[in-house]
């Protein structure tokens, strides 16, 4: 039994029938409420690790334990993603046909809860992101920074335990990068969430309390 939020043991992930090894026996422990930056060169396995931590994929071997339960066997991955994880992507990945407030409601639509006002919750989250006036806009009517803030609101919709951000500032200028990192740090502190950010950028990495460097599919150092 472990007290860590995530316990990663001997994690391996290979593609193309084993010809590409993204992770090679990675071990890692993450406590609840930590703020972590995962860094490393391109192809080192950062995003693969994030996908496995977020239950988007299953490892080739090894295991990821969340609160002691093994993802994919003890815990159903869909349920895990819906209730415990919020994703933020570099390319925002908002639905172009939905308004900002509707995009924020998408995770809530996937987890049906009786008597829950999705629009009200989405409105509150957009207000928290400073986007109250932009709630009715479509993604193509928003700036890149605004889109990423909508994506953060969406990631918070189901009140997850963990925020996983894959290069969240990769498509932003320095002003918006600073703002997004400020928002993420604020959320992490205020809600006591675990924040795991994959990044290439030193400024973003240094904002995290703990930095993990990945090289050749293993934790360096």
């Amino acid at each position, binding site marked *: 039994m472990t007290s860590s939020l995530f316990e990663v043991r001997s994690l391996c992930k290979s593609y193309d029938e084993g010809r590409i090894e993204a992770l090679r026996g990675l071990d890692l422990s993450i406590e609840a409420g930590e703020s972590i930056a995962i860094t490393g060169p391109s192809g080192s396995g950062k995003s693969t690790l994030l996908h496995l931590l977020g239950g988007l994929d299953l490892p080739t071997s090894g295991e990821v334990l969340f609160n002691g339960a093994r993802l994919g066997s003890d815990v159903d991955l869909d349920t895990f993603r819906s209730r415990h994880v919020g994703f933020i992507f570099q390319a925002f990945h908002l639905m*172009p046909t939905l308004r900002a407030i509707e995009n924020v409601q998408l*995770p809530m639509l996937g987890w049906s809860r009786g008597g829950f006002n999705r629009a009200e919750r989405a409105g509150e989250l957009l207000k928290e992101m400073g986007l109250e006036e932009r709630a009715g806009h479509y993604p193509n009517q928003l700036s890149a920074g605004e889109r990423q803030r909508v994506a953060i609101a969406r990631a918070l919709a189901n009140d997850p335990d963990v925020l996983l951000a894959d290069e969240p500032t990769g498509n932003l200028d320095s002003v918006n990068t600073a703002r997004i990192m400020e928002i993420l740090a604020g959320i992490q502190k205020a809600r006591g969430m675990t924040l795991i950010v994959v990044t290439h950028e030193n400024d973003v990495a240094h904002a995290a309390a703990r930095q993990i460097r990945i090289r050749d599919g293993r934790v360096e150092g």
Partner: protein
Amino acid sequence: MASQLSIAGFVWKNLWRRRVRTLLTLGGIGMAIGAFVGLVGFSRAFEQEWMRIYSSSGTDIAVIQQTFLNTSVDESAAEKLKALPVVALATPMIYNVMDLTTDVNALAYGWKADSYEFKSLQLLSGRTLRDGQAEVMVGDLLAGNLNKKVGETLEIQGTTFTVVAIYHGGSALEAGAVILPLDQIQKLSSLQGKVSTIHVRLRPAPAGEAPEAYLKRAQAQIEAALPGLRAVPAAERAGNNQFVRLAHASAWGTSSIALLIGILGIANTMAMSVFERTREIGILRALGWKRSQVVVLIQLEAVVLGLGGGVLGIGVGWLALSLLAALPETASIVSASFPLRLLPEALGISVLAGLAAGALPAWRAAQLSPVEALRHD
């Protein structure tokens, strides 16, 4: 504050996003359902008109040989039937389809002058025909199309007949038909002494005997008296004669092909939609949507296409039936009333078509790996 996002709203936005493709798909399935409503409605209306012939004349049983168009029943069998205790009236007749003009062909009945069937007709002008005379009675619908009046002549297969009456029949099949003396139609067809069928009206059932049991007993009695012939209840005869069966088979055959094409249209639209939205499906999965929820989303989109096409098709089919009821060539076999029974059937088929068309694309969408889907361009 903006409205709450629902699955239905999400489905609608997805379909409306590519509205030209959605409208074309709706048009495709709409034409298919329209073909179903039009063709099956036509064949059902045809069957109903046949039933009206029997019900309006009070015929309980039709005595036939084996098949509907086989005019090889001996006319003399009518006399044997009249001698049976269950039989009140028996009248021999011939049905045929004859060319009246180059454009119009119509049902031609051969009746004897004393046939009880005349009582079901309403004479609008003239008198009933006489045996052995070159006389013809014309249904009002047909008379209108041919512009014929009493006293004028009508040439049928090379013989000139005098129009002695314009009548209104209980069925569109009668209103659009001609009635000739039985002997005249036998002469035209070189079938002297032969008839298509003998219509029988039974005596009332004895007290205490159920109508169904009485009908069965009468059938058995007739068939025992006339070996080689069949006694068929009127309702069965209306729905199971070769004209009606042919109409049903053609209608279902043609509309099945149209429906198959419509289903393939929806399937193609949904398959393209799933392919184009691969990344979006990956996003939904990343946001915690289950495979089953993705299946429901895609299937709902397909069902909405099917149902929308169904509503459109019902309108198209209704228009087609109205047109057929108005055209001189088909007015005699289709009444203007829309067969309401077709509505739930058409809508049910539309939903099933949507589900069938959406099944494979939905399954494919559900099988997508979230990571692979997110990488999709």
